[in-house]
């Protein structure tokens, strides 16, 4: 793999304090492409986050709640039957799952929602808005808002509300208002645009809990830093389990928050391969997919420069994926940067491959992963045959699949 590793100068770029730059850039990606109205709020947020991380009251409170409310740390689980499934006569890699699906609310999303809610409290903002695709980030945000008594409005595309009716009801039970978005493709992209418009209008009273490592600076950094706990625990747990760094990290990428949380503490360990798995929908050649890094071109969406699915005129295209959480035509700018400098590899698997993986993991491990997460599992089919015995692979098991059972049944032709 030495040919794909970054050169020495690239390594220097990877020093944590250089990412992002003072102007919010990861290489040429990132930045702040937003209406002027939001610029002071972004500056305020950046400052508040920097001060919070230095304040033991904040970090202690965050750690305490991550432990007692979220249920961290999550286990690093050795998937023995999955390992056996992919083993050959000459052996094969050992597969570990970082069990983010065991977090409160069923996915990694709450790490960030909790952190940002604590920040909002520090900034004196009493109204919270969020966007959601699969509903996991919406549920996580509604949950922490209930916990802290904050008003909560979640923007969600009408198409996603139909696909994820269970999560819509969960958010309502938690006291949040779910605001349907019918504009454009009525999915995550449009919900995000509508949340940004709400923020432009109510910026003085409202904090926007953006749910991925996307959006204008400082969000890609802020969300990454709240999810970095995933990688920090993994680093320690790998030492305990097999006494060294893992060889490969594997995670699904829509906006890319669970992948970035896992990758972040390993970025400078360049002998650890990092692989992000995008959604190829019906197949990248069909045009019906959400494989942004694999097939996109550099553009600006939702405040950041990054790879983007767009037509030759620069109009943003509709993404397609069986998984609402990956159905997004953009991707976090730091992922685009990692792709460009070759620090991480980005691949794509189809809806069908993800469905197969979801069934396989359910049957072999007794764990029903979310459809998003199933994309990461699906890549094992291609990855495992290339890895020798003794290689250690960690998959971010980013969410549980309960929310997807209806979709899966429908795809499998089962009438519930």
């Amino acid at each position: 793999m030495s040919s794909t590793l970054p050169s020495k100068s690239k390594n220097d770029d990877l020093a944590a304090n250089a990412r992002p730059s003072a102007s919010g850039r990861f290489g040429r990606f990132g930045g702040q492409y937003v209406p002027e109205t939001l610029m002071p709020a972004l500056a305020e947020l950046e400052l508040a986050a920097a001060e919070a991380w230095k304040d033991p009251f904040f970090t202690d409170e965050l750690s305490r709640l991550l432990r007692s409310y979220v249920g961290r740390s999550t286990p690093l689980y050795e998937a023995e039957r999955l390992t056996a499934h992919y083993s050959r006569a000459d052996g094969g890699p050992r597969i570990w799952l970082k069990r983010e699906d065991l977090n409160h609310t069923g996915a990694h999303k709450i790490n960030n929602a909790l952190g940002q809610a604590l920040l909002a409290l520090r900034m004196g903002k009493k109204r919270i808005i969020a966007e959601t695709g699969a509903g996991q980030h919406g549920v996580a945000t509604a949950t922490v808002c209930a916990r802290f008594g904050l008003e909560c409005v979640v923007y969600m595309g009408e198409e996603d509300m139909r696909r994820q009716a269970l999560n819509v009801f969960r958010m309502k039970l938690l006291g949040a208002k779910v605001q349907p978005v019918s504009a454009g493709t009525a999915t995550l992209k449009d919900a995000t645009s509508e949340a940004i418009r709400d923020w432009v209008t109510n910026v003085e009273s409202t904090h926007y809990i953006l749910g991925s490592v996307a959006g204008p600076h400082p969000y890609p950094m802020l969300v990454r830093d709240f999810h970095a706990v995933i990688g920090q625990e993994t680093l320690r747990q790998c030492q305990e389990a097999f006494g060294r760094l893992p060889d490969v990290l594997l995670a699904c990428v829509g906006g890319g928050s669970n992948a970035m949380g896992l990758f972040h503490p390993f970025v400078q360990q360049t002998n650890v391969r990092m692989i992000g798995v995008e959604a190829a929908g019906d197949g990248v050649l069909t045009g019906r997919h959400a494989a942004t890094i694999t097939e996109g071109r550099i553009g600006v969406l939702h405040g950041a420069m990054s790879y983007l699915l767009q037509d030759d005129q620069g109009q943003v295209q509709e993404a397609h994926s069986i998984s609402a959480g990956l159905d997004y035509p953009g991707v976090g700018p730091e992922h685009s940067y990692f792709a460009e400098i070759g620090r991480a590899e980005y691949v794509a698997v189809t809806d069908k491959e993800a469905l197969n993986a979801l069934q396989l993991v359910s049957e072999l491990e007794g764990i029903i992963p979310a459809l998003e997460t199933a994309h990461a599992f699906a890549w094992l089919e291609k990855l495992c045959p290339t890895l020798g015995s003794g290689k250690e692979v960690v998959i971010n098991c980013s969410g549980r699949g309960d929310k997807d059972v209806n979709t899966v049944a429908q795809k499998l032709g089962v009438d519930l």
Partner: protein
Amino acid sequence: MAGDPDLKTSEDLLLKLEEAGADMVELGIPYSDPLADGPVIQEAASRALSSGTTLKAVLEMLSALKGKLSIPIILFTYTNLLLTIGMEEFCSSAFNAGVSGLVVPDLPLEEALRISPIASSYGLDLILLVAPTTPPERMKRISENSKGFTYLVSVTGVTGERAVMEDRVGGLVKQLKQSSSLPVAVGFGISGPDQISKVKTWGADGAIVGSALVKRIAQASSGLEAKEAADFCKQLKDAAG
């Protein structure tokens, strides 16, 4: 919005608006994800995209109007469209089509500083926006770096008509006039003659009416779009005195 409902209508609109006394026209290039726009302009952009409107076709329409139209044309569009064609090429073709300036609402000062010199080198003014949330020191830097005029966003929010205009806008106009010699035009939320008079009293040099005009165009019977728009424009012009 160029191309709403089609480019032939847009051409007609530009000519009739000039006749009705418009001092300049801000013409939208439709974009799929207009972050700074409320429902009226979003829907207009969707209609324009559905009718197949492209940047190239808009610029061709403007080129054909050269000589027939004497008021300045300002293009209003989003960063991704500029990136796609490339800033140099965008500016050169816009200039050749007779365009005078550019408003890009998702390009705040920091990002605008990189491309403003390119626009200037092609004779285009990159007009920067100031919002009610902008702190005084930053307001000064924006107005120093804006070209043509400074665009004062009168509301904390997206484009769209508002029933009343907040009195704090008066203070913002005054502040801007003190910090730079550039003219100040007030936009976002201006829906009719009363607000134009108010903005004028406060000392603004111009008022920009978007959604209120776009809504009238959308509601007009087919073929009467330009007439409706021109009638409205005359009322606004009368209010401006």
